[in-house]
């Protein structure tokens, strides 16, 4: 009797679970993955959406596999997909995303800038995703480091030469190397080369990869590296070394600096990355919301997207998880001081006179990792192992050329637009 009861209960639980699953709108995201952030999404940001939403997270490679596998199997479980611009791009090529042109009209009053909407077409002429939130990379310094700024330097308009001089002054004063970069195994250092270093010195990323400008740039970076903390090749997130005082000046994605800024806002200043001869390269990071083809609950998905793009939810997103609005929304004055610091850093970066936006790589599909490797390997060989920059750049350019030809990815900004695969000069 007991066992019958038990199995009856088990069946009931299973049934109710599958019913619940059938009713939920499954929202799969590669963003806001850490447990605390995912909880914020579930408990704060998705509150008020009609119907029940399950917020699920997945690392980018697995996200890609899952989306494509569900499409191939003809059995969709995901109704909304939230991911970075570059992560959604391969799903367009594989035909896994539905167009959302109908939503553009519905969301007309949100005031999403035309440029951002255009990005959401992914070059197809149809709206493929709705911009969700944006972020970028900034620099953070502990206030005690400001005293050592080189004479005449404005922290909000630094050049790479001044950053090096600053690092040198800090080392002379403290005996330590206090500049930090996230060059660890999971750090976002490749984005620094692609969005900051290369554009600032060469005005491009792929095309001028092995140019004379690039050669000079690596020389400069190597000389800056003398003042960079040697633990940098182990740092994945810069917030911990900043808080520990191991590093006084750091570059990273705002999401990976947030803990330090929120916990001790009085201790830090935020400012844009330095400028080179070609401008102040920076990489805007845009995340979008898309609806997979054959989504089990398209109406539910539309409701989620409408909700998340409301100005008040966008402001909440900034306050809770540090990603900034893509819609017209005033950030409130009572924003927490840490988030305000991030917002200032982002605004100074975007608004810099010499700002040179560099997009995340587009069209590389599953070769994104190997694309990053070209830059990491160049860094490893030139800066850490002291190999000849010319020889390294020539060798790596051949690898880069092979990758571009294999993926046929056309150039993205700031490289000059190309019809076919982006050329490596």
């Amino acid at each position, binding site marked *: 009797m007991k066992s019958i009861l038990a199995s009856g209960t088990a069946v009931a639980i299973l049934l109710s679970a599958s019913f619940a699953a059938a009713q939920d709108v499954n929202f799969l995201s590669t963003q806001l993955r850490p447990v605390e952030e995912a909880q914020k999404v579930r408990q704060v940001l998705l509150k008020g959406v009609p119907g029940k939403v399950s917020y699920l997270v997945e690392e980018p*490679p697995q996200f890609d596999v899952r989306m494509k596998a569900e499409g191939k199997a003809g059995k969709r479980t995901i109704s909304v997909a939230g991911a970075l611009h570059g992560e959604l791009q391969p799903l367009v090529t594989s035909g896994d995303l539905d167009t959302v042109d109908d939503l553009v009209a519905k969301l007309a009053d949100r005031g999403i800038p035309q440029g951002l909407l255009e990005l959401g077409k992914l070059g197809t002429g149809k709206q493929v995703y709705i911009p969700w939130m944006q972020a970028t990379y900034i620099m953070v310094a502990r206030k005690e480091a400001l005293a050592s700024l080189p004479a005449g330097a404005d922290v909000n308009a630094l050049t790479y030469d001044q950053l090096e001089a600053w690092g040198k002054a800090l080392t002379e004063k403290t005996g*330590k190397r206090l500049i930090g970069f996230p060059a*660890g*195994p999971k750090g976002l250092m490749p984005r620094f080369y692609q969005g900051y270093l290369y554009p600032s010195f060469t005005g491009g990323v792929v095309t001028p990869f092995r140019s004379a400008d690039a050669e000079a740039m690596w020389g400069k970076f190597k000389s800056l590296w003398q003042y960079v*903390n*040697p*633990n940098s*090749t*182990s740092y994945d997130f810069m917030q911990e070394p900043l808080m*520990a005082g*191991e590093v006084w000046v750091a570059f990273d994605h705002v999401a990976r600096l947030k803990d330090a800024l929120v916990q001790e806002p009085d201790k830090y200043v935020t400012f844009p990355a330095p400028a080179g001869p070609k401008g102040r390269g920076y990489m805007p990071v845009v995340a979008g919301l898309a609806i997979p083809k054959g989504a089990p609950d398209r109406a539910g998905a539309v409701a989620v997207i409408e909700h998340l793009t409301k100005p008040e939810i966008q402001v909440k997103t900034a306050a809770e998880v540090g990603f900034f609005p893509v819609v017209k929304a005033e950030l409130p004055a009572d924003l927490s001081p840490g988030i305000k610091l991030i917002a200032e850093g982002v605004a100074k970066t975007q608004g810099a006179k010499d700002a040179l936006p560099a997009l995340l790589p587009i069209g590389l599909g*599953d*070769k*994104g*990792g*190997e694309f*990053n*490797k070209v830059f990491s*390997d160049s860094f*490893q*060989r030139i800066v*850490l192992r002291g190999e000849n920059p010319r020889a390294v750049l020539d060798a790596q350019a051949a690898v880069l050329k092979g990758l571009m030809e294999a993926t046929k990815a056309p150039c993205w900004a700031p490289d000059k637009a190309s019809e076919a695969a982006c050329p490596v000069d």
Partner: protein
Amino acid sequence: MKRTQSRALPYLLLAPSLVFLTAIFLLPLVQTIALSFSESGVASLGNYRRMVSDLNFGLALCNTFLLVLVVVPIQLALALGMSVMIEKIGRGRDLVLWVWTIPLGVSDLAAGLVWLAILQDRGYLNSALYGLGLIDGPTAWLTYETPGTLFLGVVLAEIWRATAIVLVILVAGLQLIPKEYREAAEVFGARPWTIFRRITLPLLKPSIQTALILRTVLAFEVFAVVYAIGGTNFPVLVGEAYTWQNANQNTGVAAAYAMLIVVISLAATAIYLRALRVPAEQQP
């Protein structure tokens, strides 16, 4: 009828494990071999070429072998000493054995993190040395600029973590050696060192062989400890396979690394089987 049944019985009993092995071991192995020898569906040696020409390949190969050559002999010597000591302990033997085998229950990654907490700039060792006035401030030992101390850190962590498995095998082996041999040797006046060299060691050979094979194969597959302590500053073969699969998203090159590790492990096993061969008549 009965006879055929009894003849089929051993095979029937073996069948489940055979199915199991085929499904979770042989099939993936065959798939990995196929993956490593193909590039976008076409048969090719491209993955192996890329593996060999990668900037970390030589370093990873070198580091892995260096680690095995340093760690395994130390572990064997330590475990031999410890197992003989355990033999001699009367009361409290189980407690000592229990304490010594605690690292067996700790996962590789956790062990690596424990040692990272000790050795990193703000770690316990730095604090202790600073407290004693031996260093001026936090010293970095685990960076790309200090390969020596980084290697030492990995060796320490590996020895701490994986000596216990050798110890357990040797303790079991020691218990199998009949006491009569030693008693006879003592009657004839043999010294402890002679007894150890002439009786214990030869009779322990099968256990040593097992322990060495197991330990060496596992040492070639070292990853989590190195990853925790050194990140990518200390490339090893399995770490490279992981990076190619995970960060570079190139399954082909990752499969090539996996095959290389399989080949090296098989070769090491074959060498031990031959070098420590125990003729049937000598087996206890």
